[in-house]
């Protein structure tokens, strides 16, 4: 497959009432009780550990899953662990209408794919994207489709700097080639 293409099963972060969860903050993603952990391999088991409904995600999620969350994902603290915990679980990507600035940078700099998705509210209201669906998208062009439902999705392509860091591997590797 084209290196720019990504495909995976989606997991849509809904609350008990079936609404997409917005403003998920870093204490819900990776609680401050575990901030002393410095080994990425140990971080996966705490992912979403303080988010109602989703505390079992480290057990129920599968490698390559694509998480879909509401706007302002990753609000709150600057902790890198809130990104690394998903990398540890080999989550394929996170899609949301928007991310907190620091969270987005942390993901970009560690080479973890985060992308903005458009029209999410309407998609969820119309059952256009449901946990278990398989989606496919091009990180460079933003072309995307829900393979299960045969419908197009709108994803914002990576910015040039995000794309370059992503394909270099991370900010460190990218930095070695720019000076």
């Amino acid at each position, binding site marked *: 497959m084209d290196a720019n293409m990504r495909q995976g099963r989606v997991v849509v972060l809904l609350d008990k009432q079936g609404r997409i969860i917005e*403003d998920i*903050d870093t*204490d*819900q993603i990776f*609680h*401050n*009780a575990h*901030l*002393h952990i*410095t080994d990425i391999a140990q971080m996966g088991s705490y992912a979403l550990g*303080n988010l*109602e409904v989703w505390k079992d995600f480290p057990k129920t999620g599968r490698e390559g899953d694509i998480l879909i969350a509401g*706007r*302002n994902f990753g*609000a*709150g*603290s*600057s*902790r*890198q*662990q809130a*990104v690394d915990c998903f990398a540890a679980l080999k989550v394929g990507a996170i899609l949301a209408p*928007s991310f*907190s*600035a*620091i969270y987005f*940078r*942390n993901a970009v*700099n*560690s080479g973890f794919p985060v992308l903005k998705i458009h029209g999410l509210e309407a998609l969820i209201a119309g059952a256009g994207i449901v946990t278990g669906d398989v989606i496919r998208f091009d990180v460079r062009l933003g072309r995307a489709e829900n393979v299960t439902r045969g419908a197009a999705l709108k994803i914002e392509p990576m*910015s*040039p*700097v995000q794309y370059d860091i992503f394909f270099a591997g*991370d*900010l*460190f590797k990218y*930095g070695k080639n720019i*000076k």
Partner: protein
Amino acid sequence: MGQTIIEKIIQAHSRDDAAAGEVVWMDLDVRSARDFGGPNVVKNYEQEYGEAAPADSRKTFFTFDLCAPACSLKYADNQQACRDFARKHGIQVFDVDRGVGTHVMIEEDLARPSGTVVGTDSHMNILGAVGCFGQGMGDVDIAFAIKTGQTWFEVPESVKVVLKGRPSPAAEAKDLTLFLCRELGTKKIALRSAEFYGEAVRGLALSGRITLCSMITEMAGIIGFIPENGPVVADADASYAGLVELDVSGLPPQVAVPPSPNTVRPLADVRGTRIDSGFIGSCTNGRTEDFARAAEILKGRGVKKGVMLKIVPATRRVYEEMLERGVLETLFQSGAIIVNPGCGGCAEGHVGLTGKGEVQISTGNRNFPGKQGKGQTYLAGPAVVAASCVAGEIAGPEDL
């Protein structure tokens, strides 16, 4: 075309065109890490760069403010790993005795008007209070910044927030800030720089500017500036992505109720809610003025029996000022628990933790579910927290 404040500051630190929306390489005047994030910064640094020296050790700092002194063996190890790295490279450490890193940087004149400062603290943008571009970053970013002295950054758009009128005399800087958390939510200045104008902010002292700028993070903004009477101003013909006008005339005290700093009500709506504990401190309200206001209210009244009031000065200098002005003695006599300087109330291992069922009123900046424990946290200004601790229920000074 003229420049906004953020464009001006970034332009002064970049050879690229620092117009909003552009991704530029930016020189960093100060790069720092603390005891959250710091150990991972060191780990990343050594993994990527081995023994190589930082770009400039004199511009690199560690600030230990979260678990100070170490509240667990793991933090003791983590802090020592940072100290060892700092010693090896000749980097200054503001150790566990000094207090909140951002405040120390203001006191030490490391955060200067028009400067650029990064660190592993999402409230680094507090430095907007002194016209400095402070930005919180993760440990990959900071390791790279320490090694190279620079970072990439997308120059944010700016929003002009114009406040009309004057809040009620009972309202403190925190009340205005909480009102803005409600009105701006996490959308109106999201991912943007905010410039605040108007009578309500023009006269704010440094402590009040810190309070307002500290909660830009909770509004999902990049940073906030208060240009009037401040050291850095925007050009008259600068271009803004938005204008928000808000009437704050007669604004009464405000309280953020669970579950977020953006769910804010007037004090009157929650008055009488029983509390178990109070907390005064944090990077948002940890200045001498904040404690002096609380002391005025507590003097001669005292904390109600059965209520815990926890006091955490932002820095050692604040602690010293409290000693000199008799504030510390008044707080002690009133029954408050006084702890050494630091962040104190915001994370596990701290004095601000709540048990299941506990109701806390705090001058902190976040009350997300589970953040301080299983209890319920309300956010308010120092006057309301002090009065509530006298009454044993949420109250303002006028209720006593």
